[in-house]
């Protein structure tokens, strides 16, 4: 019988450190790319969703707050939020938003757009926070633009996850997490299962 917890259960600390560092130096946002690259590599080459299953700091954070600390209403997720249409639609939406962010980065790189130094939540509200400065002078502006865009995406999805955790079962975000959907889709395609 399993007893106690192991280091993987503490991965929520990594998530908190990531978001904290980004608030004071936006360039740390780049580290979040690991949360994109590692699950993809694992699903493509390792044939599994090991990242979601064991290492995702966000998943561990929701488990800690929702299941262990019990700050969750623990309601059932509405059927439409776990439907395939919503899950794949949300994945597509996030991909479009990611490409949109890359366009903004390209605009700064090519000189056709100016740097927008703001953390934006839900693609709408600028977070009233001005300490997320870049590391220093000499850093290419497009890398700064990407960092702001990417951190905004990460923070927005964290907020969605926290809201889901509070209202529904703690790991409800995992049902429609774009990375989770994408990696499961890759695994299904490889094994010839219907999506």
């Amino acid at each position: 019988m399993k007893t106690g917890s192991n280091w993987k259960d503490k991965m929520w600390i990594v998530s908190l450190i990531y978001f904290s560092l980004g608030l004071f130096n936006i360039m740390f946002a780049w580290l979040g790319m690991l949360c994109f690259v590692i699950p993809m590599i694992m699903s493509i080459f390792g044939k599994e969703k090991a990242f979601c299953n064991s290492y995702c700091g966000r998943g561990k954070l929701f488990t800690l707050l929702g299941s262990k600390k019990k700050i969750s209403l623990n309601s059932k997720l509405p059927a439409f939020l776990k439907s395939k249409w919503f899950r794949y639609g949300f994945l597509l939406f996030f991909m479009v938003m990611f490409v949109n962010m890359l366009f903004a980065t390209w605009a700064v790189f090519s000189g056709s757009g100016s740097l927008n130094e703001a953390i934006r939540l839900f693609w709408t509200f600028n977070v009233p926070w001005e300490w997320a400065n870049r590391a220093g002078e000499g850093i290419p502006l497009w890398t700064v633009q990407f960092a702001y865009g990417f951190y905004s995406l990460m923070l927005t999805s964290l907020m969605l996850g926290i809201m889901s955790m509070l209202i529904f079962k703690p790991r409800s975000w995992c049902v429609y997490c774009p990375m989770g959907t994408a990696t499961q889709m890759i695994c299904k395609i490889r094994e010839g299962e219907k999506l």
Partner: protein
Amino acid sequence: MSAESRKRKKAKVFLDECVACGACVNVCPVGAIRIFKGIWAVPDSGRCIGCSRCEAICPASAISMEVSK
């Protein structure tokens, strides 16, 4: 739930609803459930003790406890 009725109940996964997040794997006290190739959760009915922790934690409500035959 009495120990007797718990013994007879086993976890059943609705494969079409499972998102393979692994929440059930992490909560199972006897390691009776695993994620099959990143696609869905597969319970081992031989080891399942019918505690229903997986059913309670599953965010997609893809697990139910059913009386084994």
